[in-house]
């Protein structure tokens, strides 16, 4: 219907360039927010999975120096854990390894060397397996009276709350930006329609059906919003790919924080931004034209 050969019913770019820029920028921000939300969700899942997949057994040092009995308890704990259902692997950390763990907070001075540290046994839970914790605690108490089991429940709870907060915050920000993008697309479409009001009136006067006019407008604004928002989303995609390239270029990632890069599957989600923008423009154009036609005789 609106081929170039026939001459388009609506002028292609008249007055639309600044609005296309607005749509493009909002789509860029929406795509960034969407990408950040995907990264945040992945990070939260990683935290949960990492903590839930393990448990730690501490064997507290005796009040006065190390004793042979205390040293043996670590081996007993490993033996108990190795025969516990759901535990894939159990390994006692050496004294040196334990001291390395506290080094970032307490340093490596002489004082730390004299500090009595517990022996740690790190156990990995098999994926999808459940460990009968009360039974394990009872067995460990018999094998090693000084052992304390830490199933990370306290940490998991806190981290889960933190992860949920990060995730919902990022989805909330995405929701707000999506709302602003939808408003920008709606505004741009309505402004375009207002600028072309005389064309609507003329076509109506010449006997064009409402559906013919609505079709002409909705396809026009769909194409316009699609091209502008696809440009914005593509720019955001390039940014995420570039963030991934930083590691390749030797920039070290920040500990505890994920890389702001997206996997190919996550990048594909960015297509949703122009798709939604296009649909909003299409629906706005159709409803606005039909409403405008309803107001004239």
């Amino acid at each position: 219907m609106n081929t170039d050969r026939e001459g388009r019913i609506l002028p292609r770019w008249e007055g639309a360039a600044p609005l296309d820029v607005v749509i493009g920028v909002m789509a860029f921000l929406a795509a960034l927010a969407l990408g950040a939300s995907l990264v945040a969700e992945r990070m939260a899942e990683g935290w949960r999975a990492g903590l839930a997949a393990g448990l730690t057994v501490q064997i507290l040092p005796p009040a006065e120096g190390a004793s042979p009995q205390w040293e043996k308890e670590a081996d007993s704990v490993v033996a108990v854990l190795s025969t516990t259902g759901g535990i894939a692997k159990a390994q006692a950390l050496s004294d040196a390894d334990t001291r390395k763990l506290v080094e970032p907070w307490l340093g490596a001075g002489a004082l730390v060397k004299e500090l009595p540290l517990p022996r740690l046994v790190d156990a990995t839970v098999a994926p999808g397996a459940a460990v009968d914790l009360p039974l394990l605690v009872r067995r460990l108490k018999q094998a090693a009276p000084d052992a304390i089991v830490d199933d990370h429940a306290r940490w998991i709870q806190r981290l889960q709350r933190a992860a949920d907060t990060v995730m919902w915050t990022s989805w909330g920000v995405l929701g707000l930006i999506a709302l602003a993008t939808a408003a920008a697309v709606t505004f741009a479409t309505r402004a375009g329609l207002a600028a072309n009001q005389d064309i609507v009136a003329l076509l109506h006067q010449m006997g064009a059906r409402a559906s013919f006019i609505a079709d002409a407008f909705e396809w026009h604004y769909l194409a316009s919003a699609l091209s502008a928002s696809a440009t914005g989303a593509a720019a955001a995609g390039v940014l995420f790919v570039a963030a991934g390239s930083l590691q390749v270029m030797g920039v070290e990632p920040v500990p505890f924080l994920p890389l702001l890069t997206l996997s190919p599957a996550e990048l594909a989600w960015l297509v949703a931004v122009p798709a939604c923008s296009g649909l909003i423009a299409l629906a706005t154009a159709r409803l606005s034209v039909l409403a405008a036609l309803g107001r004239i005789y």
Partner: protein
Amino acid sequence: MLRFENVGMRYGAGAEVLRDVTFRLEPGSFTFLTGASGAGKTTLLKLMFLQEPPTRGLISLFGCDLATARRSQFPALRRRIGVVFQDFRLLNHLSAFDNVALPLRLAGRQREDYSHDVEELLGWVGLAERLHAKPATLSGGEQQRVAIARAVVARPDLLLADEPTGNVDADIAQRLVRLFEELNRLGTTVLIATHDRSLLDRTRAKEVRLVDGHLVEMRAQRP
């Protein structure tokens, strides 16, 4: 074809522009509508081509009472009317050819089907060399001829023209009147609003005149 009974029209709370207008256009008739500036000729035409509803009275078009007709019937009624607007109302982003072809596109015809007709008509109104020119590059007279070609291209049942020769010289005006007469001979009912009395003198058409909002028959159509 077209019947007005006691039609009145006012804009907002203003005075009535048209008062108790009663007349009918017979099928195949050729009528000139005259009157002083501001007499209400354009308003009367707007009622005829369904741009405005009357404030009171009855209008019947192609046998359809507009007061009781469904809105969904209006597009089909409008497609049977060709209108030459006083301000042309051409689409500036379309060429002369595409502007003229617009009513045919709205009727669902394909370019291959109407291309020859449109070119021939533009040739008839003296624009054979300006087929692809945009309205902005055309003179006032050329734009008026494109507007006339657009109004007649679909061979409407009713042609309404508001000052269709206001911007052209006498030769072109004569040529355009011949076009209207030719269309009339083919069965189109024609009504032309004009100030140009020389147009009336060259035809045998009926003349109705708007005086103080009332329509008065000044001259019957001559055989």
